[in-house]
């Protein structure tokens, strides 16, 4: 097991290298530069800026220079945030995305597993369709529609949550993470509900459940003691990518609720052509995704007796 984990960790290196290389050259072909502005600077000024940031050198030379810096965990300065390094930007923005992501994750799990379980137990009955439809509302409306609707209800009508901002908010009952997290959580709840239902149905059809039923065990005991463990396996395997997606994919809600998280930073860095910040965030997200995939695989292996025996 430990060996598997270690080898997966080593895989991180080539994965990140490919990711970095791909993104690096992609940013080089993007039209528009970091210093193009409405009120044009003179060509000399642009040249000077390019020289200052090393953008006047041949692309491969820039690439090697960047690579050698990244190895030392130096992601360079951000172009948009004057006087800030990419590391500083990530360090201040990521905790915000993490808080939103974690809360969204909990909300998604709560709604998803509940709905999925109820649905599986009542297969093809009203109580299958109803909770599943409810859970699916989240994936049938894009977050940029769901967000404003929730904002309208909770922030403008009920006035329990702030419409925008993170710091500098006083006298608002709910933490600014709640609304973005709810919007995101609803989105992921549907997938979790579906996986829970599917997983449980698979297990409920298996012989040992039949045996348990035949033995006359009560329903709830069958479900919680026997079925849940196997039935939630697919959910566990989804959790890794989902969690990474929650954190990196939160840019839409961050934009709608105007939260200074990392997702928004990434989008802005792309639109501002802030090359070091683009690369920094992409590498950071990539690392997260690999780690979360790994964690969810390990968790799955631990839960699944079959794969424990033959890793």
């Amino acid at each position, binding site marked *: 097991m430990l060996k598997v984990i270690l080898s997966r960790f080593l895989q991180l290196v080539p994965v990140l290298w490919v990711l970095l290389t791909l993104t690096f050259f992609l940013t080089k072909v*993007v039209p528009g530069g970091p210093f193009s502005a409405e009120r044009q600077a003179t060509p000399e000024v642009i040249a000077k800026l390019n020289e200052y940031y090393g953008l006047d050198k041949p692309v491969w030379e820039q690439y090697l220079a960047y690579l050698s810096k990244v190895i030392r965990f130096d992601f360079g300065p951000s172009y948009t945030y004057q006087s800030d390094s990419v590391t500083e930007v990530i360090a201040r923005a990521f905790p915000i995305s993490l808080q939103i992501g974690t809360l969204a994750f909990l909300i998604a799990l709560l709604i998803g597993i509940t709905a999925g379980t109820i649905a599986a137990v009542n297969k093809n009955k009203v109580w299958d369709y109803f909770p*599943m439809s409810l859970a699916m509302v989240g994936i049938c409306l894009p977050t940029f529609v769901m967000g404003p609707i929730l904002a309208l209800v909770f922030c403008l009508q009920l006035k329990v949550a702030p419409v925008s901002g993170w710091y500098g908010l006083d006298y608002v009952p709910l933490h600014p993470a709640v609304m973005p997290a709810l919007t995101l959580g609803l989105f992921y709840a549907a*997938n979790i509900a579906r996986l829970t239902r599917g997983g449980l149905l698979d297990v409920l059809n298996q012989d040992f459940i039949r045996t348990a039923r035949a033995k006359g065990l009560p329903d709830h005991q069958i479900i919680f003691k026997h079925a849940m463990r196997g039935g939630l396996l697919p959910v566990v395997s989804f959790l890794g*990518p989902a969690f990474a997606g929650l954190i*990196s994919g939160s840019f839409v809600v961050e934009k709608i609720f105007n939260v200074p998280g990392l997702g928004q930073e990434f989008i802005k860095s*792309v639109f501002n052509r802030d090359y070091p910040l683009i690369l920094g965030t992409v590498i950071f997200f*990539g690392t997260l*995704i690999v780690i979360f995939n790994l964690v969810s695989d390990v968790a799955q292996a631990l839960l699944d007796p079959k794969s424990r025996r033959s890793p």
Partner: protein
Amino acid sequence: MSQTAISFPGARDTGTHAEEAVAGTSLWRDAWYRLQRNKLALSGLVFFLAMTLACGLGPLFTGYTYERTELSLKASAPLQPIIERVGARKAGEPRRDGIALSTLEDEFLDKPEADRQAIAGKIAHGDTYRDSRYTYQLTSRRHLFGTDALGRDLLTRVLVGGRISLAVGFAATLVSVIIGVLWGAVAGFAGGKVDLVLMRVVDVLYALPFTVIVILLMVTFGRNFILLFVAIGAVEWLTMARIVRGQIISLKHQEFVEAAVSLGLSERRIILRHLIPNVLGPVIIYTTLTVPDVMLLEAVLSFLGLGVPPPMSSWGALLDDGARTMETSLWLLLFPALFFSSTLFSLNFLGDGLRDALDPQSSKD
């Protein structure tokens, strides 16, 4: 934007080896039977087909085009009575503008409020009203879904937008299915080093932040309709490849395939007759569930201003517009959202239904 992971039970033996030729068809018949039992999935299928048909042919019958603007109409609510204002022009034919009853008073802002209301009341009553420049006359014209901010018929735009969204959904899914099935099948069937290399590639790509790459691609290559779905398709095939590979590997070693091999059947025949039908189930299920995912991704791109170029529209772009103006003109959000989510609902239910139907184990209960 999500990586929809679906669990598939281990490969299914399509029956017992002796009668596998018959079993191949009976699986589908079985599935169809089970699908019919699932009312929700079935209605999902019917609804979805109806929606595709409506979007495909509907715009021909609405009487409006998606790009023709009528500024004076502004965003008028569904079924608002439309008043026609005819004004003389220096030369040529007179100018005709439609004005919604709800905003009619705004045309007489120079008059005191009581007069404005009186005039509007008269016109609404059916009387013709003339002032120095224009003649106002109530018409029988109505817009079923209302009009957007530029006075364009919303019904037409929703249907035309549906074409784009569905086209993007299907084309991108097709791209992802083709790449995914080929990649997975080759990896699974060849095994060994080839498998290792191919699947490492998938692992690497799995680590890419999906949306991030699509956004970078869209910014790099500009807003190109074709590129839109190629880009989306290119990032959505990974799960498909994994599923197909898994299926193929487990099928390879099952008795009925080994029997076929020992019978001396050609490799091509084995793949076509024995492997593909078995893989098809999961592929169909996954495809059904990828389409709504892609449509959502398209919507997000529209939100970021990277969707289809105007005056063309898509459900994503209409939703974005609607979400902006929902406090003042709810219908601009309501109708696109209704079409969009009901389509996504139907596809999701269909996918879930198919999953239940194509899963032979579930037939045992």
